């Protein structure tokens, strides 16, 4: 476990190191969230042929910071009829669920907060904590819109966890491990060794490539649904549900929901990158590889996935709740099972 953390090598195995390791992703998360918000603002502006925020700092780069300060300063309103304890607790639970997943994300060859053997499985498990938090917030707000949003959110989360899990399970079969570091190590080499392209192997892997590509796509779609991003932002669906489960939240508590959403975006991107896109491996064999380059590649690839998420958000309309269920249960689930079957077959034959 220890050898994957440069901090343990540096400072030894003690309480301070453990706390530092747990806090390091939080620091990263704060910086990342600011960048992602800026990205969201600027990319959407670019797609819509406008300039986006321009006033705060050079070309508006300080805009996310200003928004965070604004959110912190804002009055924290608790509805009179809300169930106060649960209402106050919910944003933290949601954030905990999102942040817990960071425990196993391998940022680099030499830094993963916890290199447990069940990394991928663990990420799927803690994902459900967020669902509980969302129901908590939606119910405790004592508002029909939030309640509808919470119900939709949980239904969506549960439905899309299965195709996503099938996609990840196929990777577990291919790499015969659930440890995220092991999966990364299995994909070392040029980019055609990524599991997206069937994993390492020679020409006999060619026939499995369509299935692994399909699984990548399925995981991408499922991850969009799990993070409530357009076209699956039905729980928030601002045109009908105002803002879904966080309609009543304001100020810092709203910021927590917001933060959790961005954290979740990174988590699913990280899982996608780790499982399908080689994680911290350089796409060019040993060229530009190493611990620091690893972090660069990992974060760079994740940001690319996040860019795709933002891109889709500003391009597509929203699905309806029954169409969402239809897509999840009747299209993605059977397709993911078929892909899983063929991937397992490939694994057995080799």
């Amino acid at each position: 476990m220890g050898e994957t953390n440069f901090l343990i090598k540096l400072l030894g195995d003690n309480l301070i190191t453990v706390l530092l390791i747990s806090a390091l992703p939080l620091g990263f998360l704060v910086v990342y969230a600011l960048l992602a918000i800026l990205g969201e603002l600027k990319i959407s502006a670019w797609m819509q042929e406008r300039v986006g925020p321009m006033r705060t700092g050079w070309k508006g780069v300080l805009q996310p910071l200003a928004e965070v300060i604004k959110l912190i300063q804002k009055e924290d309103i608790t509805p009179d009829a809300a169930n106060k304890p649960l209402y106050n607790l919910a944003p933290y639970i949601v954030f905990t669920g999102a942040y817990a997943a960071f425990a196993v994300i391998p940022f680099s060859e030499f830094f993963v907060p916890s290199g447990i053997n069940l990394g991928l499985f663990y990420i799927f498990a803690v994902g459900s904590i967020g669902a509980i938090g969302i129901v908590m917030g939606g119910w405790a707000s004592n508002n029909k819109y939030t309640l509808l949003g919470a119900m939709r959110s949980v239904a969506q989360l549960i439905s899309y966890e299965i195709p996503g899990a099938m996609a990840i399970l196929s990777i577990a079969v291919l790499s015969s491990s659930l440890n995220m570091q092991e999966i990364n190590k299995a994909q070392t080499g040029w980019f055609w060794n990524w599991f997206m392209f069937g994993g390492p192997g020679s020409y006999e892997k060619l026939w499995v490539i369509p299935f692994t590509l399909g699984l990548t796509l399925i995981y991408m779609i499922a991850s969009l649904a799990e993070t409530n991003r357009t076209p699956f932002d039905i729980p928030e669906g601002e045109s009908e549900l105002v803002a879904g489960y966080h309609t009543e939240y304001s100020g810092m508590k709203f910021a927590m929901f917001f933060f959790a959403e961005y954290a979740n975006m990174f988590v699913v991107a990280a899982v996608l990158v780790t499982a399908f896109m080689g994680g911290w491996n350089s796409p060019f064999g040993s060229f530009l590889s190493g611990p620091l380059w690893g972090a660069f590649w990992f974060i760079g690839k994740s940001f690319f996935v996040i860019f795709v998420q933002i891109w889709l958000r500003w391009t597509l309309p929203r699905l309806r709740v029954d169409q969402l269920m239809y897509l999840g249960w009747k299209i993605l689930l059977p397709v993911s099972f078929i892909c899983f079957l063929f991937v397992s077959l490939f694994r057995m034959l080799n």
Partner: protein
Amino acid sequence: MNETKKIQLEYSQMESDRMRLNVGPQHPSTHGVLRLEVEIDGEIVTEVIPHIGYLHRCFEKHCEKMTYPQVIPYVDRLDYISAMNNEWPYVMAVEKLLEIKVPEKVEYIRVIMAELNRIANHQIAVATFGLDAGAFTPFLYFFRDREYILWIMEKCSGARLLFNYFWIGGLAHDVYPSFKQEVLDAIKQVRKTNAEVMNLLIYNKIFIDRTANIGILPADVAINYACSGPTLRGSGVKWDLRKDDTYSIYNRFDFNIPVGKGEVGQLGDCWDRNIVRMYEMEESCKIIEQAVAQMPDTGDVKEAIPAKLRPPKGAEIYQRAENPKGELGFYVVSNGTEKPDRIKARGTSFVNLSVLPVISKGYMFADLILILGSIDIVLGEVDR
């Protein structure tokens, strides 16, 4: 049988609690201060009761205290998205009462302005409809292009939204020298964006899935509810006041009346009503091109404006015109003085909105928002 119907059937066999949901008056998708009392069973809408009047500004009562020209700014505020089109039937009604012949040039400028405003209105209608479906980007594309039209109107009338430009017997100002060229440039831009939005939004698979086969309005129901404009034409009724009850100089132009054909779903669904607006923009562009080509360069736009406005006592007229949203009518009764005895505005949105409870029953809650968006209401006109 489509998916919604199937779900509806499955739900109808279940016993469940119904929830009353209050949509509006402050809600992002009610297009203003409309309040809908919705009864939902799970996600299925079982009943919709519109409550209107939150924007009631006593237009008709005010008119009794105003002289005829003073009413025009009030008329602007009915359907504030397409104010030029609102002014037109009103000034036509008063012109008919006074039996004024409007100069040729004025008629052409009025046609160009009204058609430009029709494009601007449909741009907002399609944009907000897309927004209701969750597509934000086309919304901003349309708003960018609408600026080109608003600039022209601003240069002509001095205002961007509420113009007070059509006066009884004439216009407030003449157009400026580069007017024709700028109009042609604007419609070039409109066509470019429309082509892009057709790809990006209208024929998007998700958008079709969302809007086709919902909110089906059969033609006979539409006529019985006196729906008009794209709401009626979306149901396949080829009826346009510009052709069927022609006014002004519309008989000089060559244009088509687009109707819904049920291209991707059933006839009269939300997609059909929306596509009619897209095609109508193109037809408006055609009319503008012809009008610009035919428009005389010389002429005084104020020559027919009467000094004294006293229609004969007891004279009354109902004048209607094709507003972008449908038939807008003004019923003007004179009592022989400078002030009208009674002005009744037959608000297009008011009439079109009354069909909402019928066409939204049995669909999902998310569809209700789209159905409301597809009939394109403006609360200023509903509540007056």
